């Protein structure tokens, strides 16, 4: 047997288990779901219903806005932290990084209940906002879009930080020094060098946080409450409460299509960023 053929066989053998699991547990049910969303006779009816109804379009818009907001919040909060951790000359940096991942260790349901306690009218977070005078005295964060963004950002922040940390660690510190000695202020050096070179990590972290946000269920439904009009929550309602399986299958297919197209766009951008940074 030729070496290349043997290598191909080995590669196929190594790929087989994951491919099998993926095909059996993801592609097969997804196909089933897709077929279910297109009942014979009126294959596009469910999609027309979704796309023709401003309520459902609003739900879709809400989910995309949620993904965008959570991504921005985690990026803005995560980048400085990841940068400081990556540049820290202390052996505690590893421990601090571990600390940032704490939210991931707690189940989504438990974490959401904790946020609910804070977000109810008498909760600490709502009280704090009331005391600023910016909101009415009976304001509560529970059931608001902002509340969902806060709760989701908290759990997804570590994912952003770890992704950015790894990328920033790989950027030679002397590149920033070089930029500064050439006359760039620290902020300009960060912008022209570090952020440009960290683009791949910024895109990867954003993609992870965005796709996890738009498909999140537990946090939006618990913290968002009855007024949580998000895709995953709507799918749940259609499936278990209204038993409209073809429609919920169509919503799921639309969500998947959006996630995949976002991922593909990001992949393209990511490829460009890598090409540049190499």
């Amino acid at each position: 047997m030729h070496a290349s053929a043997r290598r191909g066989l080995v590669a196929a053998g190594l790929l087989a288990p994951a491919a099998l699991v993926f095909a059996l547990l993801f592609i097969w049910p997804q196909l089933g779901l897709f077929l279910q969303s297109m009942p014979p006779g009126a294959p596009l009816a469910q999609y027309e219903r979704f796309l023709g109804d401003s309520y459902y379009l609003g739900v879709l818009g809400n989910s995309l806005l949620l993904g965008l907001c959570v991504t921005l919040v985690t990026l803005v909060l995560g980048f400085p932290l990841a940068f400081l951790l990556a540049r820290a000359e202390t052996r505690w940096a590893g421990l601090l990084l571990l600390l940032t991942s704490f939210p991931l260790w707690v189940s989504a349901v438990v974490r959401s209940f904790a946020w609910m306690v804070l977000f109810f009218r008498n909760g600490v977070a709502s009280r704090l906002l009331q005391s600023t005078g910016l909101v009415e005295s009976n304001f509560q964060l529970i059931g608001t879009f902002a509340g969902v963004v806060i709760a989701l950002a908290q759990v997804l922040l570590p994912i952003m930080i770890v992704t950015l940390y790894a990328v920033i660690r790989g950027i030679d510190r002397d590149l920033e020094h070089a930029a500064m000695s050439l006359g760039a202020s620290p902020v300009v050096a960060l912008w022209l060098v570090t952020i440009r070179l960290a683009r791949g990590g910024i895109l990867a972290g954003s993609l992870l946080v965005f796709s996890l946000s738009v498909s999140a269920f537990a946090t939006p439904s618990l913290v968002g409450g009855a007024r949580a009009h998000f895709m995953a929550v709507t799918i749940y309602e259609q499936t278990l409460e209204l038993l409209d399986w073809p429609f919920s299958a169509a919503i799921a297919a639309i969500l998947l299509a959006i996630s995949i197209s976002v991922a593909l766009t990001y992949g393209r951008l990511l490829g460009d960023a890598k090409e540049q940074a190499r």
Partner: protein
Amino acid sequence: MTTASPELVLEGLARRYGNTTAVERMDLAVKPGELVALLGPSGCGKTTTLRMVAGFVEPSEGRILLRGRDITTMPPHRRDTGMVFQSYALFPHLTVAENIAFGLQRRGVPKPEAAERVARMVALLQLQGLEKRLPKQLSGGQQQRVAVGRALVINPAVVLLDEPFSNLDALLREGTRIELRRLQTELGLTTLFVTHDQAEAMAISDRIAVMNKGRLEQLGTPREVYDRPATRFVASFIGRANLFVSADGRTSEDGIALDIPTPGTWLLRPEKVTLDQAPATGPNSVAGTVEVVSFLGTGAQAVLRLPGGRALLIEGPASLADLRPGASATARWTPQDLTLIPGEH
């Protein structure tokens, strides 16, 4: 030039990390157009000193003056230094031309002028045709030249070189350092140059600051530090050294007959020693057994094992290499060839 006021002054400059001292109260004045090497083994504080001048490391004590301005606490981007990093630190996402133009853009140099200065630097460093390449598409030598060009194009008050040749192979290294020295002299660049390679420091420096364990051991021209080393460390770090410690001026600690005016530590450079087959004749000659000979092309080196156990290093003409290991031979020198090392007692 010797009377001109110094361009760069380090005054009692020190850096400590907790209880360890990286640089201990260092004084140094670099004259305009002068190239001073900070030379020493790794961990001697030379790179920390350079980075304090660049502004990347904050001094624990002391002052740095550049063209009379106190820059001790000034952030790096206001200091007017041009640094060439050991790793070159070229911006990987920018082309050769963009890398060189980076400092000009930060200084707000108008585009046409910047383009012209970049072009001049590209020509000066023989990088024509590579302007649009990314650093990863260049050879090590080309990358090094881009790093030099990027630092020089901004006309900095002082050029800082951090082991700029250490990533080049031996053959390229020698040509590049001569080229850099030519450029530095022509443009009259005040330069501080960090290296651990004493041959490199000797070859291109006006003066050498020899550092050891965070202290400045000696500052002088290459000739001065070679011919009149201030300390035992300098004597053995710069070139090769045979050292004799004598308490009475008549014999060394290990029993070699000397004839020297004062007790102390005395240096005998290997090239001052001759070797012959005749018997020893009193002081300043000693018989031993040839242990190793090596032919070096322009000359040869021999190690003579003396009865007291010491190995005496001898450098001489290529004919030295004709000696057979195991043969008896006598080393000779004149009393004038011995140099007293003042820093040792």
